[in-house]
């Protein structure tokens, strides 16, 4: 069974394009540490177009995020805020720290069960 992290990257790869990161460009590499093992993922974002590569530990990147696999599994389930985790020292970022905002946009929000329905939400669309 795939882990939440694998699901997250697989879903992004299948989508191929994410409107939430249109106009953005950058290569985000992830070092996901699980005890002695480290998983490497690379997200390439080109004006909303997304490609995902795995097992590319030496790939050039604009930002390298280093984080425990368990924490990342929570983050991709919308249960954990990457910015707060960064401030707590749980996420290392080498390179362009601005790209943390790009990552936050690609991550899901809190699970729907934990949020209040907003009045009028979705009642109209632009």
């Amino acid at each position, binding site marked *: 069974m795939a882990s939440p992290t694998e699901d997250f990257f697989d879903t992004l790869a299948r989508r191929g394009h994410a*409107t*939430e990161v*249109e*106009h953005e460009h950058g290569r985000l590499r992830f070092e996901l540490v699980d005890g002695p093992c480290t998983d490497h993922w690379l997200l390439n974002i080109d004006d909303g177009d997304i490609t995902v590569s795995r097992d590319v530990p030496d790939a050039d990147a604009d930002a390298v995020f*280093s*984080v425990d696999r368990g924490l990342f599994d929570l983050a991709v389930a*919308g249960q954990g*805020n990457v*910015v*707060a985790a*960064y*401030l*707590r*020292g*749980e*996420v*290392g*970022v*080498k390179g*362009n*720290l*601005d790209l943390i*905002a*790009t990552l936050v*946009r690609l991550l*899901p*929000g*809190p699970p*729907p069960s*934990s*949020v*209040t329905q*907003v*009045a*009028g*939400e*979705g*009642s*109209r*669309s*632009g």
Partner: protein
Amino acid sequence: MNGGQVTSLDGNTFVVSDSRGDFEASPVDPTGLFYYDTRFLSRWVLSIDGQRLTPLSVDDVEYFETRFFLVPGTAALYVDAQLSVIRHRRVCDGFREDLTILNHDNKPADLRVRVEAGCDFADIFDIKNGQAKKGTSATRIEDGRLVFGYRRESFRRETAIATAAPAQFDEHGVTFAVHIDPDQEWSIQLEVTPRIIVRGGYRWASASMPQAGKPVRDMAGDLQAWRSAAPRLESDWDPLKEIYQRSIIDLAALRYSPSFGQPYHMPAAGLPWFMTLFGRDSILTSLQTLPFTPELAATTLQVLARWQGNHTDDFRDEDPGRILHELRYGETAAFLEQPHTPYYGTADATPLFVVLLDEYERWTGDADRVRHFERHARAALRWIDDYADLSGNGYISYKRRNEQTGLENQCWKDSWDSISYRDGRLPGFPRATCELQGYAYDAKMRGARLAREFWNDPEYGDRLEREAEDLKARFNRDYWIEDRQYYALALDGHSGSQVDALSSNIGHLLWSGIVEESKANAVVEHLMSPAMYSGWGVRTLASSEDRYNPVGYHVGTVWPFDNSFIAWGLRRYGYGQEAARIASGILDAATFFNGRLPEAFAGYPRDRTKYPVQYPTACSPQAWSTGAPLLLLRTMLGMEPSGDNLAVNPSLPGHIDHLGVLGVPGRWGRADASDRVDVEDADVTC
């Protein structure tokens, strides 16, 4: 200097000390060295042979640089001082201090010079709320440095103190055994460096170990370039020159990088409590300063777009399309004791984002940026309809979803008692304050222009304009209090009734254009009435209202920024003389503060105090107070982009006979704006 305190700052790094250069902060007192919302040094006390020093004078060289001239001993003892001390402090990712002791005697001096140091690593919110620390501290001496450390789980912060020459460190400071020959001097450089330690040893901002003596950023050159790029002011009223220079320099001082060391800058909100990114403050300051320093607007749009909400998150009061309220970097944010990573609980920043984008294009002609932010602007406009209409009545309203640490009032008057009925009752939630509807109207009208001219979507433009016109008609029906002839402060989402207090918010309605022409005169008469206009400016709340308090934060004080937008609104509706009167009062007030307007001053009538009494805990400098004189220059000259030209339509206060702003940057290149019609390049329409 403020109350004997001396501040040196550079964006969100700042040092607040006494006039000796010392600080001994208590847990609830915002003195010390602050960096990204954390106090990295709380104790810093210089002594010579066990004696404290006495200040002779303080020279605020530049905002980031202070020189303290001192003599040993207390005031009663220094009559024929044989020693003098110069303490030269520069803030730059921490601070650096050059300490020089001059021996004026004909005998050599052997001295024990000591700097006591200590650190409590208080979060700025710990200081505001008097909270105790939850982690543990440790001090160590390593490699000729004194290092204070703080740890709470994985959260680590350190402060390193280094000296340019060998020194004797202990856990409470550093001591120098000094010998100075007659008529000679001794000096040492100390460097204090904050360090934010994150995973993998990657360190934030100050990546290298501190080493006194290494070159620092050329801050003087940077300030010089900033000042040179700003337009030049000419006026026969001399105080205006000081006010203008103060504003340009303070804007430079308040610039900071919200993304930790990136080479771009936007204004932080205000010293000492708000030295961080605020959506509303950054947008309004950018609007005020567009004719002078348009790059602040460009950065503000970029950063706020980057952090635009795209989730529904109750803890952060986040919705898709919502523009953030506040981003913080301290321990309370890190451990989710505060929701500031970032917090989205503001109801005005989102429509104001669209207003700024349009105004930015009108001045700069930067069409590429407007196209670049199309998605963000559309999401912001969508937020108004889909997420902000909490009562289902077609108006923006607010009610926090984070009941513990979210903001109750999500408009600019965000204190608990700011929104009230005339009789003092507080309305229920959701609250739909009037100025929010003005901003929504303006955002839609401006969005319509952007859709037609830049997004190639005239149908969307037509729809936005129809919605805006509909909003204006409804607003003028639902908010207008017929028997009092002004707009209600808010609609009470609980009872549905008009919140009938008379407030300065109605001035913002003029700025946004939502006021029907037939009602403008009554609104202006209220704004300029004795109940509202103190002689210095328009009060936040009329003196006739139950909760009025001349020293109440949002219930009676006069806010320079508020007045600058009211003046803009008065010009929009053709009330040039009234706008000039507002400008005159606020600029007169600035002369009492060496040209630097505080966040707010008391609402006492001017003829009673003769002096603008500063609000007790007002921030200074504060970005939108710093921007207020600049917007008032615009309103006095009636500067407006007109096609590819700069139009001018002056309306000056009586005591200013001549006013010119030369070299205004914009889509025209540089142009001069002046009340004198012979100025070249200006499209004078007076």
